[in-house]
């Protein structure tokens, strides 16, 4: 076997990773071959130098300080994130609740507005019939009676529209259960 073969084994030889028969054969070769022995000596010295390298001990108190800092950056940071998320969620829920409230208020305004408009329509009708009954001028009757156009809406239609708007407005209120929880004062525990 050649020197090249034995030199390829020197790394494992210094690391004591060769099987006993191969280890013995390397040992025998280097005792007879001065070039390979010199190579092995160099490698052994290098290994010794590297093993002798060590890291210094940091300043006293460093380990505790480092651990505290790590915990501050992880577990404590996470609890801050939790609180922030909770605050954000709470403000989102509040905003949603107020939006629902505005929607309901708007629906109610439209509803009552429609009722008022409806009553005015009834009043106009009554006025028209009253005028016609007295046999006064036709011009007056035309100016007050607008049966099929010109913004006239029958009372039944008005009630239907108002009811629909009320129904459309309210789902916002019920869409978010958390809004309901806030409305019912059930959000205190969080």
């Amino acid at each position, binding site marked *: 076997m050649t020197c090249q073969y034995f030199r390829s084994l020197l*790394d494992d030889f210094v*690391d004591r*990773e060769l099987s006993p028969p191969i280890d013995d054969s390397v040992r025998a070769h280097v005792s007879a071959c001065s070039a390979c022995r010199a190579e092995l000596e*160099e*490698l052994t*010295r*290098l*290994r010794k*130098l*590297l*093993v*002798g*390298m*060590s*890291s*210094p*001990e*940091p300043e006293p108190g*460093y*380990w505790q300080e*480092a*651990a505290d*800092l*790590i*915990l501050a*950056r*992880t*577990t404590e940071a996470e609890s801050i994130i939790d609180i922030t998320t909770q605050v954000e969620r709470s403000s989102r829920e509040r905003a949603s609740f107020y939006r629902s409230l505005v929607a309901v208020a708007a629906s109610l305004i439209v509803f009552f507005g429609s009722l008022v408009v409806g009553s005015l329509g009834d009043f106009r009708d009554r006025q028209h019939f009253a005028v016609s009954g007295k046999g006064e001028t036709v011009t007056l009757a035309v100016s007050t009676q607008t049966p099929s156009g010109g913004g006239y809406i029958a009372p039944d239609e008005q009630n239907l529209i108002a009811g629909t708007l009320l129904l459309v407005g309210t789902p916002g209120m019920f869409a978010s259960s958390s809004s309901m929880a806030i409305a019912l004062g059930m959000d205190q525990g969080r």
Partner: protein
Amino acid sequence: MKDSVPELLKRFVRGDAEAFAGLVRQYQKKVYYVAYQMLGNHLDADEVVQETFVRIYRRRKELTDVTNFTSFLVRVATNYAIDLLRKQKGHSQIDDSTALPGETQIELARQVRTPREKFRDKVVMEEIRRALDTLPPRQRTTALLHDVEGYSKAEVAEILGCPEATVRSNLHIARKKLKAILKKRLSAKE
């Protein structure tokens, strides 16, 4: 009684902050020493310690699949250290003479040694460190983990996420380069 590492890991994965603190206390020195060997100064080693544990904390769900926590931890640490090395290579390298006091880097200083010996040890340490600095990050890390920190080739392969054959080859190349750089030192008789 102190919890075992598997027990701490189980609790940590479930989100137990105390268990995480226990793991930090138990493993921070290991991470620091590996990082110090790779980067050669306290500030960078400290950064690696911090980042490693923060990353471990964020990736704690993955730990259920981890069989060897030490390897996993050292892998995270060495990956971060390699990134730092690459970044530093991109910038102008810090002059070694401005690094932290070299005498603190010598383990042998703990023994009773003459000032002349201390000085020689310091010079040798600096020389080895400079030689290591010339290696590409993967080869340097392989040599440090195996020869300085004492990890087996299989462990280094697991830490670096590569086949054992790659570790052998990297180690062989690294030692060859170091021998060439430190030729004068290695051939000198002690």
